[in-house]
C-alpha cells in the first residue's frame, strides 16, 4: 500500500511536471473567443498564443498530458476526412480527453433534422469540444451560437478551414522565422477551397503578401472586392517570379471544381507546379500543399520528394496546432463561461 501510494504520488508529480511545460509557455493567457470557427474572429494575440503553445507541443513530441482529463471531444465529421479527423482525435488523446468520432456521409441534416436539433443533441451529451466538418458553409458558426461546448471548425463547405490556415502559417513561420514581407502564392482551385478561405484571412494578419494563380474559372465575380489585398495572375509562371512560398490546391471535383476545366491534363499543363516552374520562385522558396495531393496534376511527382517541399511538416504541425487549439478552448485559465442561445 505504502509502496503503491509512493509510486502513485511520484507519478502524479511527474504528470504535473509534464502538464506544466505547456503552461509555462501559455502564461495564463486565454483566447479572446470561445470557439474557433473563423480566422476573422481571432485577434492577433490569439494567433500568437496558438503558435506559442503549438510550438511547445511540437517540441514535446510524444509526451502525453492530462490537461483535458475528464473532458470529451466530439469529432463530428459529416464529410470524409483522413488527416484532419485523425489529427484532431490524436490531439484530444494526447491531452488526456475522451474522444468520440461521429463520421457520416450524408448528415442527419440531410435526413431532415434541423440545425437546432443537431445542436441540442450534441449539447445534451455535454461535450466540451465539438470539432465539426460539414459540406455546408456556416454550420460551425451556427452550432457555436447554440451549444455550450467550444466549437472548432474543421472545414465548412467552401468557407473556411481555420486550423489548416493556422498550421500552414505556423509551417511558414517555422521555416522563415517571420513571414512579414514574404510573398505567398496559392495556385489552383481557389474558388472551391476552404483552405484558401482561411489562408486569405490569416496571411494579411501576419503581413505576408498574397498572390493567386488560377484560371478565370476559379476567380469568380466579387473576388477582388472580397479580397482586395490579393494579386491575381492567370499565368502561373509570372506569378511564381518573386514568390517565397508556393501552395498548390487540389481541383475539388466533388464540389464541381472540375466542371470549368476541359481536362485535368490541360489544367496540369497550364497550372501544375513542376520543377522547372518552381525554379522561377525565389531562391530558398518552399512548396506546400494541404493534401490530399493528386500527384502529377497540381504538383509534379518529382517535386514531392524535394527538401523544399513541406507537406509532411504541415501534417506534423497540424497535430501540434490542433493540440493547442483543443487545450486553449477547453481549459480556460480565466474560467469564463461561454453563453449560448439554447433555442
Amino acid at each position, binding site marked *: 500500500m505504502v509502496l503503491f501510494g509512493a509510486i502513485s504520488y511520484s507519478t502524479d508529480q511527474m504528470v504535473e511536471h509534464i502538464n506544466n511545460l505547456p503552461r509555462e509557455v501559455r502564461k495564463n493567457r486565454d483566447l479572446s473567443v470561445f470557439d474557433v470557427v473563423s480566422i476573422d474572429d481571432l485577434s492577433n494575440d490569439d494567433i500568437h498564443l496558438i503558435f506559442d503553445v503549438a510550438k511547445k507541443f511540437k517540441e514535446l513530441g510524444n509526451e502525453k498530458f492530462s490537461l483535458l482529463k475528464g473532458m470529451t471531444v466530439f469529432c463530428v465529421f459529416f464529410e470524409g476526412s483522413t488527416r484532419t479527423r485523425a489529427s484532431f482525435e490524436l490531439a484530444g488523446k494526447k491531452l488526456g480527453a475522451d474522444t468520440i468520432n461521429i463520421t457520416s456521409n450524408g448528415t442527419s441534416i440531410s435526413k431532415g433534422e434541423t440545425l437546432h436539433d443537431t445542436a441540442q443533441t450534441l449539447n445534451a451529451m455535454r461535450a466540451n469540444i465539438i470539432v465539426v466538418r460539414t459540406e*455546408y458553409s456556416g454550420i460551425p458558426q451556427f452550432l457555436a451560437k447554440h451549444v455550450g461546448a467550444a466549437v472548432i471548425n474543421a472545414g465548412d463547405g467552401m468557407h473556411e478551414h481555420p486550423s489548416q490556415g493556422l498550421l500552414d502559417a505556423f509551417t511558414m513561420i517555422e521555416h522563415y522565422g517571420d513571414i512579414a514581407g514574404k510573398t505567398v502564392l496559392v495556385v489552383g482551385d481557389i474558388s472551391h477551397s476552404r483552405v484558401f478561405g482561411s489562408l486569405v484571412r490569416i496571411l494579411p494578419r501576419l503581413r505576408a503578401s498574397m498572390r493567386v494563380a488560377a484560371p478565370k474559372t476559379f476567380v*469568380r465575380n466579387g473576388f477582388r472586392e472580397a479580397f482586395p489585398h490579393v494579386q491575381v495572375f492567370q499565368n502561373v509562371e509570372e506569378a511564381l517570379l518573386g514568390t517565397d512560398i508556393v501552395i498548390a490546391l487540389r481541383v475539388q471535383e466533388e464540389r464541381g471544381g472540375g466542371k470549368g476545366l476541359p481536362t485535368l491534363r490541360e489544367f496540369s499543363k497550364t497550372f501544375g507546379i513542376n520543377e522547372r516552374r518552381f525554379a522561377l520562385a525565389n531562391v530558398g522558396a518552399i512548396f506546400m500543399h494541404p493534401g490530399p495531393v493528386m500527384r502529377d496534376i497540381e504538383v509534379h511527382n518529382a517535386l514531392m520528394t524535394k527538401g523544399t517541399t513541406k507537406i509532411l511538416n504541415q501534417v506534423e504541425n497540424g497535430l501540434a496546432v490542433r493540440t493547442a487549439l483543443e487545450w486553449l478552448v477547453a481549459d480556460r485559465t480565466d474560467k469564463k463561461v461561454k453563453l449560448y442561445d439554447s433555442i
Partner: protein
Amino acid sequence: MTQFNTMVSYLITNGHVIDPVSGYNGKMDVLIENGVIAKVGNELKKTRAQIISAKGKIVTPGLFDMHVHLREPGREDKETLETGLRAALRGGVTSVLSMPNTVPSADNQTVIRFQLSKARELNFARLFAAGKITKNGEKISEMWELKNAGAVAITDDGEDVDDAALLLHCMEWAHTFDIPLLIHAEIPSLTREEDAVMHEGKISQLLGISGQPRAAEVLAIERSILLAEESGAKVHIAHVSTAGGVEAIRRARSASLPVSGEATPHHFALTHEECLGWNTNAKMYPPLREEVDCKAVRAGIADGTLSVIATDHAPHLVSEKYLPFQIAPVGTVGLETLFAAVNTYLVRPRIVTMATAIERLTVGPALVLGLPPASISEGAIADVSIFDTNTEWVVDPSKFESKGRNTAFEGKTLFGRATHVFVDGILKVADGIIL
C-alpha cells in the same frame, strides 16, 4: 340586391385621397354606400353613416398584390387561403393573385375552381388565381380551360420554362386565348444546376456559397422578350432583380412590345449583404443583388418600366429556414410589409411620389391582368384602404397574420401601416385590427 339595404354606409372624412384612375390627389371626403363609392368631395354630409376620420392619413384604392404564394392546396402548414388573405387585409391589400405552384399545382381547372370558391366563402381579400404555363415543364397546360375556370394569368413561377421551343409554343397558345404570361426569368443551367443559391459577388465569396451571375436573369428576360416578339403574347417579367433586366424591359417597352415588368420590395430595398451570417430569410430566387441593381429597379419603378410592385410573398416553416443556407427553401413573406416598404424605401426618399407608388400597386397589376383597376371614383366598387404613413414600427414576424415568419425585413424599422380596409364596401380592418 336586398342585402345592400342592410349595409352600413361609411363616410371617410378629411383623408388625403390618392386615386390614380380619376387623378384625385388631395384632401377629400369619401362616402361608401351599398358597396360602392357613392360620392367623393369636400365636406360631405351624411346622416346615418359611420364616420371614419382619416385626418393625416391617405385614402387609396385597395392594393393589388399580383405575386403571392398562398400554398393551399397542399402546403397548408406553410400558409392557407385564410391566413394569406387575412395577411393581405392587414397590409391594406384587397386583391391578391395566387401563384399556381401548389400541391397539386394549378395546372388544371379543379384547383383554380377550388381556390376561387374557397376564397369567396372566406370573404377576406379578393382572390384571383393564376394557372400554370406548362404541365411539369414538359407540355403546354390547358390554358383555355384554366381561363374558363377563372384563371386570369398563367405562370410557372418558382422556375422558368427551361425549353425555349416549349416556351414559344406556350406563348403562341396563350396569345390565342389572350392570357398574359408571368415569367420567372432564370436560366437554370446557370443557377440551380450549379448549386448557385445566391448572387455571385463579394458576399458569396465571403460566405463560401456558390453564386449565380446576373446573366442568369438577364439572358432569360431577353429570351422571353424575343419570344414575346415572335409570338405576340403578353409577357410580364416577375420580380426583376438586375440592372440589366430592367434595361432589357425598358428597351422592349420603348419598342412597343407587349412586355411589362415587376419589382418586389426586397429587390428594390435590400442587397446581398442581408445574406451575411448565412441568413436564410434573405435567400430567394432571384437572389438579392447589389446596390447598383436596387437602384436600377427603383429607377425602373419611377419611369414606369416596372409598372407593378408585388411581393412574391413566399411563406415557409420556421424549421425549414433553420436548414443550412445551401438547402433552405427560398423566399420571404411580404404582404404585411408591402406598403411600409414602398413608403420607406421609395416614397420617403422621394424616388417616386405616393401617387406613382399607389399606381404601381393598383392600376399597374390590373392592366397587366386585363382587369378593371380599383378606383375611388363615384360608382366604383368600394375596395378602399386607409394608411397612416407616419407610423414607425419595427418588423416583428411573430405579430404577422401570415403563418410565414420568414421575412427579410425582420428587425427593420419601417414607416406606414394600413388602419382601415374596405372590400366591396364592407369594413374589414378597423384601426389595424381585422374585424
